[in-house]
């Protein structure tokens, strides 16, 4: 991965209203152990990642948004491959962020992703 590597995030239908995603999309839930799951955009494109997520993993997604590795490091977040989950899997580590810090980072990441636009939508 490089600074310009796109990290692909699947968007759950529950987090969309009127085609506007919630900033929760880029904020891990407590059960995620403070790590956000994304796909390495150098290893897989948006639509195939969506197919893998929905068909292979059996999960729900209405589309793919993306942030770069640089955008993560700008928020003091580390992106690291985690092929133990599956080959293209990457974790963005929110470390020991407080709730407010995670809130701010999530909003900034979503703003970056929306400026880029949807890479894939059903």
């Amino acid at each position, binding site marked *: 991965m490089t600074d310009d590597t796109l990290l692909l995030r699947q968007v759950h239908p529950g987090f969309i*209203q009127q085609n506007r995603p919630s900033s929760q999309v880029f904020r891990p839930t407590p059960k995620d152990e403070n790590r956000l799951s994304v796909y390495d955009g150098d290893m897989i494109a948006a639509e195939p990642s969506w197919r893998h997520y929905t068909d292979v993993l059996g999960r729900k997604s209405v589309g793919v948004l993306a942030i770069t590795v640089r955008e993560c490091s700008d928020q003091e977040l580390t992106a690291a491959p985690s092929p133990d989950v599956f080959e293209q899997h990457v974790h963005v580590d929110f470390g020991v962020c407080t709730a*407010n810090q995670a809130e701010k980072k999530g*909003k900034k990441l979503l703003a970056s992703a929306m400026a880029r636009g949807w890479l894939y939508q059903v």
Partner: protein
Amino acid sequence: MAIQEYLRPKLVGERFQGHAIPLEFLRDLAVLEEMVVEVAKWKFLQEHPERRRTPRGFTDDMILTLSAVEDGSAVPVIALMFGSLLPPANQVYYDQAKAAIVGAISAAADNQPVTAFLPDTALAYFDRFGRSLRDGEAIEFAPPTPGAPTARLTKEVRRKLLLASTGVQVLTEEFQLRGAVHEVNQEAMTFQITLFDGSKVAGPIPSQHFDNIIDAFKGYKQGMKILLQGVGRYNRLERLQGIDSIEHTTILDPRDVSARLEELKAFKNGWLDGRGVAPQHAGLDWLAGAVESRYSEDLPLPYFYPVAEGGVRLEWSIGPQEVSLEVELSRKTGEWHALDLDTDEEESTAVDLDDEAAWDWMIGRLTGMVGARRRD
């Protein structure tokens, strides 16, 4: 014409405060007259088993009228008006009818057999009498004998009376529904609507609501929703079977609060790929009421999202400001966070959503952001 007071039902509920009766309720009172007349005839025939029909002119010269509306919640005074100076002989059967109707209502409320008071055919009138009652409302009747408890007709008691009739398989009730019109048949003038729980219901298209229903159909793929108010047919399990008539239609704002919170009610536990706690319905109802009553119409409506832990999150994008309010429904508290994406300034605080002052503060902050955007 002579006039004699007949019945003083008391209408209980917020809609009837201040001496007011909504016009739609007058339909229920009109049905009451029909029911009284038929029960009076039945009482006559019970006393005269040798007869197959009531005498000609049995109901001539006697009509029930609304003579006044008194205070104390609304009390419509219903009077019996007759053409002679003295009450006609048949009046005794009208009095028996009143006692039978009030007795049946009391019996239903007490889970006692109602057919001891009214026949099947008379019970069917409760399909239209009391149909306008909403949750928390009642029509109270003084008991025929002093000291007996007041008879209260509520939505639940009405349902019991109807279900006591062997002939009733379907009840009609007023409804208010939100959904998306997925199908229209212009030849048959019918439509189908998908409700937020995924169920589908069919109904007629009244000509005065044709444009709204067609607009909702055209906007289906864009997520357009419509609010329908009318009368529906429900089975004995209280499931809506179809729409009988439509009285009002409203195309909803894409971010209509009640519609969105009703959508969130369809979320089940495990909604987030096996995780995710569904928001509690009572909490969603509270939040809908709080937002409807306190939110300013001058502000953009928030977006609502479920939160994995069972809460609800409100979000606004106002110029460079990204604002969120994460609500813990059972405690009625929230976490407010506002981030200016241009300046990186942020503000966060916990709010007590049972406190009017907290809402005033949030409305004030949002108003300031909207004003700042207009000035830029």
